[in-house]
């Protein structure tokens, strides 16, 4: 999380309160786990940050530096080659 820069997409297994500074830098958040009441869902809604939760595989499929497109309306996360 220390490597997060403004506008990065934050990809994590799940988010925790300690990750708020990184979340505030994120242009979007993607998690492996969680439901509609998870920390990522609550905070992203309040901060108006697009968020896709419960992908199960985001952290295994997406690597640091990958370019990704997040469509939070449709729940789609796409790795852009």
């Amino acid at each position, binding site marked *: 999380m220390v490597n997060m820069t*403004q*506008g990065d997409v934050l990809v994590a297994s799940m988010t925790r*309160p300690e*990750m708020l500074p990184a979340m505030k830098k994120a*242009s979007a958040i993607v998690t492996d786990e969680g439901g509609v009441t*998870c*920390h990522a869902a*609550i905070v992203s809604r309040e*901060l*108006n940050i697009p968020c896709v939760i419960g992908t199960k595989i985001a952290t295994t499929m997406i690597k640091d530096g990958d370019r990704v497109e997040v469509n939070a309306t449709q729940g789609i996360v796409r790795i852009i080659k």
Partner: protein
Amino acid sequence: MLPYLDELKQLNLPSKQYAIFGSGPLAIRGIREARDIDVLVKKDLWDSLAKIYPPNEKGNGLIIGHVEVFSQWEPFDVNVNELIDTAEIIENLPFVRMEYVIEWKKHVGREKDKKDLELIEDYLKSDRTLKDS
């Protein structure tokens, strides 16, 4: 950020009968740390807990380890049941909604509440520059 959640979960309080308030709603979001957990409970639950657990120093709450239980959020004229019934579930635990926290802190207006209000304002004021462009 919010310690002793396990302690609270072990109490196995009945759902819809309690909500975390005080600094808890701030801590669960990561706005600031909390040193303990304050829980607001409905009257029936308060009555049964008061038979088991000792009062706090001020006599307005009960001490259950690191969890402090209250039946009122003074000075606040919002109905306790409403605060609990409208609680927001975050990570499977009920938290008093942030709008009530803001209202309460504005109402009380102590120095620490003013600081918390600044932190909440800062929390809600994200840099949307990249997204707006």
